[in-house]
């Protein structure tokens, strides 16, 4: 019996399995290692031996990307586009999720269809008309417009996600709150919201990463380039005639570093968000 267990669900991997897993992990990480290595090389070394691993050390590529490559402002813009849109998504989704889970209100069914509609229709389907709509609203190239669009792309999912958390709460809490004479708003704000903070946290992390990684929305709706985020800056960098690999690597590192750190620290929440988010397709 113990032999059978080991064959399919062993507590400790055999040598072969450990080696295989280690090699595969290394292979998976290789592109990330390549970015770090290339970033940390000297300019001459990059020119002579662009992809050799860790063959020299210098911070000049980071400096060039930061100062000449404009990655300092791209980073700021990424923050300006990810943070407000994430806050909007989390706040509005929590409110709407609560209403859908707990409150009867006129037009509820219709509003819920709207949420489902948002889950089903990809951004791709309406990206073109939205460009002209934003243009006529004067919202192209504006932080406000792009933040609102980014927020809306995640709003259906957020509402759906938060609704599940509120649905799981026992009804006794609500009744107790009502008995104590709490108003609807107080009940929501003081009783219910504190109970779903873990859900809000997971939603916040997931949404933030989605907005940070978003490429198409700023590409389309920031045509003037006033507030280019990192993803777009990186794309324009490769589009340039003379691609300077060193600073490009540094720019790539600046773009992925916040993502990697956030993911490694909060991997559980991130994975949970991505797995539920996959439903959106």
């Amino acid at each position: 019996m113990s032999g059978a267990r080991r064959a399919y669900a062993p507590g400790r991997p055999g040598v072969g399995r450990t080696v295989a897993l280690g090699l595969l992990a290394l292979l998976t990480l290789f592109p990330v290692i390549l970015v770090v290595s290339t970033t940390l090389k000297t300019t001459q070394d990059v020119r002579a031996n662009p992809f050799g691993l860790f063959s020299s050390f210098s911070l000049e590529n980071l400096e060039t990307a930061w100062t000449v490559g404009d990655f300092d402002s791209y980073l700021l813009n990424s923050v300006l586009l990810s943070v407000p849109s994430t806050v909007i998504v989390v706040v509005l989704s929590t409110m709407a999720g609560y209403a859908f889970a707990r409150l009867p209100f006129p037009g509820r069914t219709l509003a819920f269809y709207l949420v489902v509609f948002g889950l089903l229709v990809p951004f791709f389907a309406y990206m073109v008309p939205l460009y002209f709509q934003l243009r006529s609203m004067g919202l192209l190239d504006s932080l406000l417009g792009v933040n609102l669009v980014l927020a809306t792309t995640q709003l259906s999912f957020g509402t759906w996600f938060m609704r599940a958390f509120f649905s799981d709460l026992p009804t006794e809490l609500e009744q107790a709150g009502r008995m104590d004479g709490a108003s609807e708003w107080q009940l929501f704000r003081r009783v219910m919201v504190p109970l779903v903070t873990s859900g809000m946290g997971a939603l916040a992390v997931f949404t933030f990463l989605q907005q940070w990684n978003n490429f198409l929305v700023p590409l389309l709706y920031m045509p003037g380039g006033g507030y280019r985020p990192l993803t777009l800056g990186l794309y324009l960098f490769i589009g340039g005639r003379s691609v300077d690999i060193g600073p490009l690597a540094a720019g790539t590192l600046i773009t992925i570093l916040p993502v990697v750190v956030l993911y490694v620290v909060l991997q559980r929440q991130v994975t949970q968000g991505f797995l539920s988010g996959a439903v959106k397709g």
Partner: protein
Amino acid sequence: MLLVAPAVLLMAVFLVFPVLNAVYYVFVDFDGLDTSPPWVGLANFTELARDEQVWAAAWHNLIWIVLGTVGPLVLGLGLALLLWGVRRGSTFYRVVFFLPYVLPQVAVGVVWGWIYAPTRGWLNRGLEAIGLGGLARGWLGDPDTALYAVLGTAIWTATGFVFVIILSALRNVATELVDAAMLDGANYLQRLRYVVLPQIMPVFLMVTALTLIGGFAVFDIVFVMTGGGPANATEVLGTYAYSNAFQLSRISYGTTLALVVTALAVPVAVWLNRLQRRASLEGGGA
């Protein structure tokens, strides 16, 4: 009511309105400037059906859908089986294998561009090292390989996603049944085929549907790595729709393409929805 109002308002303005507009664009010929574009009926659709580039792009999407689904499924399942039951370091491996899925596609495209580089790229170096130097080439610049090179990158990204979902499904597999099959003399493949896979089938099908849907709408990674080139070798419906709408000012035509791409994915989405009623993703990340 008031709690839902802001969300509903945003969705009405930035989702419903543009979708309705998209439907309107399909039946007119809008060039981006004309305030009352001429009505053309179904002309956009008939043009689309006759456009050879559409068919070429659709063919690329089909290749993408098949390989981009089979690849991550096989690799993800393999990885999950390899890690199944391993306790020591299992969190580490999970974090590592899922990482590519979390990274921005633009950054992924940049790095893989170096791996595929014609001179001193790591793929060519690796081939030389194992005596296959004759195969070396500029993988993204060669029309024969560009699509598969980009696909390879996409598979690298999607495998981790499949892996995590399947691994969490494997946790619920009844190991007693596997043990029993083993005592009955079933070998590894037989146990896999007749005992393990049937138990994770609902989740397996769901992942299949998800990766299929991704294959219809593929855009970012192709756009970043090759922009549809060289010589349209990697043009997919998504990039073709984009270039029509935003580079050629053929707005109505581009919109029609985008809507058709969306519509093609609908049957798969419906199928996915049915599957989800049977298998729940809840707690998959734990």
